[in-house]
């Protein structure tokens, strides 16, 4: 847990999180990751490296895939943010969840919320991705357990199922 910066410097930040308008009182440089987890109790977003290398804290910010550990909350002012919790209603969620389960796409699970967000982001842009697109689309999300192969398979399978529907 990060110690909260001094109270006096806090400011009001307004943004939309998973479709709901939110107002938080936070230091402008507080990490979006911490605001999501600590203030809004959306703990599905995981902290991995805390330096923007591993992607496990990925969220969508105005449709862009970002590392929430690198985003000062002030920068998210007025933005629309989608976290793993908000993805549960997404049309891609069931196919992705099922495919991750079937293919062994998750092991320890720490990278999984970020992987799912990266996969959603990819499939929204490219509904029928080639293997190279999948590799590229997930390149910012590190996984130590799976060796990625079963994740690629899961994303490809989810894409095929969605296209067929």
């Amino acid at each position, binding site marked *: 847990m990060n110690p909260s910066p001094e109270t006096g410097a806090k400011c009001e930040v307004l943004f939309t999180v998973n479709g709901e308008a939110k107002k938080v009182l936070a230091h402008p440089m507080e990490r979006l990751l911490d605001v999501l987890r600590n203030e809004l109790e959306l703990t599905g977003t995981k902290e*991995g*490296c805390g*330096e923007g*290398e*591993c992607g496990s804290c990925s969220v969508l910010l105005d449709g862009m895939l970002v590392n929430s550990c690198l985003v000062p909350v002030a920068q998210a002012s007025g933005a629309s943010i989608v976290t793993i919790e908000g993805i549960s209603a997404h049309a891609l969620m069931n196919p992705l969840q099922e495919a991750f389960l*079937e*293919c*062994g796409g*998750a*092991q*320890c*699970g720490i990278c999984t919320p970020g992987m799912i967000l990266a996969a959603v982001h990819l499939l929204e842009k490219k509904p029928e991705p080639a293997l190279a697109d*999948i*590799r*590229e689309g*997930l*390149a*910012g*999300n*590190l*996984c*130590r*357990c*799976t*060796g*990625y*192969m*079963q*994740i*690629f398979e899961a994303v490809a399978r989810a894409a095929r199922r969605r296209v067929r529907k």
Partner: protein
Amino acid sequence: MDRIAQVVGISPVEIRRRNFLKPGQTTTTQQVIREEINLNHLLDRALELSGYAAKKTRFAEENRDGMRKKGIGIAAFLHGAGFTGSGERYLNSLVGVEAGADGNVRVLVSSAEFGQGTNTVLCQIAAEALGLPYESVAIAQPDTTVVPNSGPTVASRTAMIVGKLVQSAAKGIKETLTKTGVLRDDYTREQFCAACREYIAAHGALKSYARYEAPGDVYWDDEKYRGEAYAAFAWAVYVAEVTVDLTTYAVTVDDFVALQEVGKVLHPVLAEGQITGGVAQAIGFALYEKVVWQNGRMINNQMTNYIMPTSVDLPPIRVFFEELGNVHGAHGAKGIGELPMDGPAPAIVNAVEDAIGVRFHSIPLLPEDLFEALRPASVEQEAPSSTRGAA
């Protein structure tokens, strides 16, 4: 192995063929190989799956020109499952299986699930032993006030050692029910549930424990460090195909075949995940992950400067299993957790040597290491135009 082959003037394949352990032969600790393992068969299959012979010839031809040199290398290896020597005997692991009045079964072990699939596999084993659907079995949280000490989650021992104990303990539940006359040998899930209810009403809790017993033919001498070092080995032949870029000095792995004999594969998807994950980590170990120490501390302890493979750095990791079965493990399973860490680095170093003719004695092979190793050599070999053409 490849160096010995070079010195005696035979191929990397032939040196392995001639020296493979065979059933009946002994290891360095005088352990007699009792498993019916045929390593030549494993090698043949790995060579075929990787297209080794054709690639070896083609790369030798193509490497004459250009700045990108290709190579292919083999590693044949084994990994003991469970603790070494007397380790399992000292651990003396205990496992429990409990059935409730509702006929639901709980597996009581101290093994920890961290994504490798322990919970799934141990529940599968108990369900199989009891003839129940998988959904009837759950695993208890590994809280030491609830579960017995089944040993640590290490040493490629969980599926084989703990799994076997789960199987025995589950059979104990069935035996208790049949011996007390509340269950027939041949039963449905409903009959099993009714039997549990009846037994518990009459006798109280229905639990069965199994303690590790060393197989009769496994003996280890702690004084002389001789004997059966492991109750079973997993055997493997891995083949790596690489490209060495002489402009950037980077090595990339283009294809990776991981063939192993691990006894019975209890869960194909999870087992494959263990292997691909291990191979990926070991490719990092071979090519990227350099730990830099200073004053007893790792100074590159950030993901910014400690580089692990991303989704674009890895080749297709193609996993294949042979299943010979093994009497010691649950349903013939052996350990697989550590195995895939052993083979990739030697296979990659051998492939790099095949590509550029330089042998390395340490890993990781960073571009800087290749640059250093190739610098004097390329100066000496300036005359033939081999590596000087435009990329």
